[in-house]
């Protein structure tokens, strides 16, 4: 493993050193991610003794965010629905508006919004706490005291992140579907059958599967990437802020990559 804390020296290969650092940092993420996945899939991680800390993190990840997210998702959805419906109507293509809305809003935009929302509101602050615990050596203390820092401190945060993304994405999609129906048809139940039919046509088995995988990968990225130990982290407050921005960029880049792959899967 390259010691990335060494200041970069000029000379033969500064770019080589940068590449190695970059690779080491991603390796760290992968390593941490696999550890967390293994722990998450182990029944021993959900023992009664673990439940309290698990519940605390689940609650912290979702409940405080719920109201704010519902408001933001509703506003964003309404604006986009209005734009799409008005544009489609002006071109005389109203009958395609529903299809476009379900595809853009429910399938693509809202999951992305949820991922970034959870990253900003829960996992990045959580990652900061974990970094602080690391730098203060408290994880090491816990280890010495016979605890398992990965299981007691990190896994609950990762599981809570995954849960938050899944719950908020489901909630946001439901909200968007209801708002779309109300905006297009108004307060009537008569169009429910045709609306359901359109939604059913969009959600064919391939699209549904890709959507489920996308949500899963978004949640994993948002929950794992910020928590991974960063070799560049020095404990300095200024440096840490810069690291946070870097982490957000990393999360955003990865979610975009998944998004691109899902688009390729859906439309090619």
């Amino acid at each position, binding site marked *: 493993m390259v010691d990335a804390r060494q200041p970069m020296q000029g000379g033969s290969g500064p770019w080589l050193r940068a590449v190695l650092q970059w690779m080491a940092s991603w390796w760290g993420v992968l390593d941490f991610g696999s550890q967390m996945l293994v722990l998450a899939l182990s029944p021993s991680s959900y023992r009664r003794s673990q439940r309290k800390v698990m519940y605390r993190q689940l609650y912290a990840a979702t409940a405080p965010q719920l109201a704010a997210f519902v408001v933001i998702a509703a506003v964003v959805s309404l604006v986009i629905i209005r734009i799409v419906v008005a544009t489609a109507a002006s071109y005389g293509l109203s009958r395609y508006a529903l299809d476009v809305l379900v595809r853009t809003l429910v399938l693509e935009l809202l999951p992305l919004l949820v991922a970034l929302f959870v990253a900003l509101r829960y996992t990045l602050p959580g990652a900061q706490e974990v970094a*602080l615990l690391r730098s203060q050596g408290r994880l090491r203390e816990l280890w010495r005291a016979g605890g398992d820092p990965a299981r007691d401190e990190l896994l609950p945060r990762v599981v809570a992140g995954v*849960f938050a993304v*899944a719950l908020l994405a*489901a909630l946001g999609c439901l909200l968007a579907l209801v708002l779309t129906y109300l905006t297009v048809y108004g307060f009537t139940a008569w169009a429910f059958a045709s609306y*359901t039919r359109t939604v*059913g046509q969009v959600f064919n088995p391939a699209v549904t599967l890709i959507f489920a995988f996308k949500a899963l990968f978004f949640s994993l990225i948002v929950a794992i990437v910020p928590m991974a130990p960063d070799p560049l982290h020095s*404990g300095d407050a200024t440096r840490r802020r810069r690291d946070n921005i870097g982490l957000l960029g990393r999360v955003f880049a990865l979610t975009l990559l998944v998004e691109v792959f899902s688009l390729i899967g859906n439309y090619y």
Partner: protein
Amino acid sequence: MATEPEPDPAPPVAHLELKARLLLLLMVLLMAAAVAYLMYARGAFERTQELVLVADDSEGIVVGMDMTFSGFPIGRVGRIELSPEGNARIIVNIPRRDARWLRASSVFTMENGLVGSTKIRAFSGVMTDPPLPDGAERKVLRGDAAAEIPRMVASVRELVSNLSTLTGSEAPLNATLHNLQTAAERLNGPRGALGVLLGNETDAKKITLALERTNALLARLDGLVLKADGIATRTDGLVAHADAQVFGASGVVPETRATVVQLNGLLADARNSLKKVDAVLVEAQAIGANTREATADLGSLRGEVDASLRKVEQLVNEINRKWPFKRDTEIRLP
């Protein structure tokens, strides 16, 4: 290096476990509802029957698209496959409750619009026909708006050129319209339609006169018809009388029938007489045969008579020679 602040311990939450469980329950409910709704939207809970549409080209058809009847979706494409003949087989799943709109005589069309996807439509003309059976196979009629456009443009261009020719200032239509206008003016004139038909007033007057005379003729014809009526009545009586004469009890027909009966008797008698004549003829034939034989005998008799006569002649000649009064028949030459 400044000492790092201690991370704030999170304030304790009342009923944390209950709230967390509620959140988990919400999550489970949302997921179950989403799965159930999507399955319902995809028609997983509907009992369906299949309809196979055969098209020469399945371009624009995608799995999951609707088949409509009067604008209402009543089925969706479940599968598209290639038949051994190279045709596209589009298998449409139709919910049982919507299948009643399809009859054995229903027609199916596939239309490619200029904008939007291909549409499959069903038309049922006779709703009293038997319902479409499960797994029925029908040929789909294809209408392609994009393919029709070039042909339509060519036709429209021809039409416009014909219209230009028709409406030109030298066009026959223009002259016809002009003549029509003159005719209309004359129609409104004192002689009206007759004037238009005949062209001049003298002929029109003649026609009027002819009409008057025809009227008089018709009046006379009326009288004639009345007379003919009387004659017909009388003829009726006559016919009745003749009927009685011919078909009455002592009419011609019964008498004729009696005569025919008598004639039958006569004919029987004649048949008997003829039989007798037949017998006579047979006998006559026998007499004829005998006569023929007698004739043959007469031939031989004649031969004998001939021979006797020749002998008598020779005898006479002998006597003549020997007779003193024999004439000298010899001619002496000097």
